[in-house]
């Protein structure tokens, strides 16, 4: 069957099987930021934005995403022009092995897209589904809090595209 959706702002059509899982379809489409950790909804490494909501792509049927807008880390920033969250993760040492980072960045982006002044508790809640075995959680909270005030300028620079 055909699946039509928007991937990182561009319309795309893919040939999929009805039983395909979104995680596999995205990775096959080249979105290697989408990581497979537990493959059952517990770790958050596979998180992507589906119509603005961060969800675990390992437990979403690909066919369900017909006409949806999907954002992965590939759509957030580039090494030359990182998203404020990506820069803050680097600056604050919120990354070690890096495997959890794409999922955490997506969950953090969902938060900052609707709340530019989050409290520490709001950051903790927004990232409660993203396990990290390396950094010990503190640094990524600092990173998200540091990125928040930079979002306004980022939006202005990117012409409003989040």
């Amino acid at each position, binding site marked *: *069957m055909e699946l039509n959706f928007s991937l990182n702002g561009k319309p795309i059509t893919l040939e999929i*099987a*009805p*039983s395909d*899982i979104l995680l596999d379809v995205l990775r096959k489409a080249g979105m290697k930021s989408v990581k497979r950790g537990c493959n*059952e*909804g*517990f770790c*958050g490494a596979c*998180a992507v934005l589906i119509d603005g*909501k*961060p*969800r*675990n792509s*390992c*437990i*979403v*049927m690909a*066919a*369900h995403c*017909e006409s949806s807008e999907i954002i992965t880390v590939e759509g957030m920033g580039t090494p030359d022009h990182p998203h404020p969250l990506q820069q803050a993760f680097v600056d604050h040492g919120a990354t070690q092995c890096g495997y959890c980072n794409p999922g955490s960045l997506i*969950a953090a982006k969902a938060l900052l897209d609707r709340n530019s002044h989050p409290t520490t508790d709001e950051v903790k*809640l*927004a*990232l*409660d*589904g*993203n396990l990290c075995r390396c950094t010990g959680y503190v640094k990524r909270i600092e990173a998200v809090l540091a990125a928040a005030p930079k979002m306004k300028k980022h939006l202005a620079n990117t012409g409003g595209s989040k």
Partner: protein
Amino acid sequence: MLKNLANYYFPRSLDDAGSILSEKQTKNVIIAGGTAVSLLRDQTIDGLVDLKYLPLVFIKETVAGYSIGAMTTAQEVFQSSALSGPVGDLIRKAAGNIGSTLIRNSVTVGGNLVSVFPWSDLPPAFLALDAAVVSRHEKRNRTIPLMKLYSTHPRNILKHGEIVTEIKIPKASPNSATAFTKFSKTKNDYAIVDVAVRICLKNKKVFEAAIALSAISKLPMRARQLIA
């Protein structure tokens, strides 16, 4: 994996969904948030019927109480400003205890109520509140009190192709209070036990008490013996 899945449907009306679900030659199953369905290993399912385009996402306050659409997500319930007071707080607290933010953005109220795993957090809250689901089957609606829905597994109560469309939660009597506690190893682990309580005072005495428990038995239950 749903190895033999051949079709994925997006019905535009409840009755269209109903007729796809009642087809005799093929086994078609509802998919809501998909958090349970996507993990199934089942070679007998031919089609999935996705309710995403049906108008089942709502949280309304009516004269009788609250009404929540079956496709409303746990996260929408958790963050809803329409739910307040003892009844609303209990519902929001239970929804906020489901898994993680990422899970709550997928899990739907209808899916959580119908699949009812021992760890499901919404059923005990709604049981303590004397709620009832509304369902549609063969172009007719019926109301099923939760006490009945959980007297056995809901799959034995719901008919083949029956769709839960909303849950209705009555207003609490004046002077009511509620509480919800989930005991689990970590914040986003499954419950070891859930306790949902609603009490109502009259003349400084407990006039009504409802205590619902889950995760300690196969199905959520109301604790009757505790009431003296």
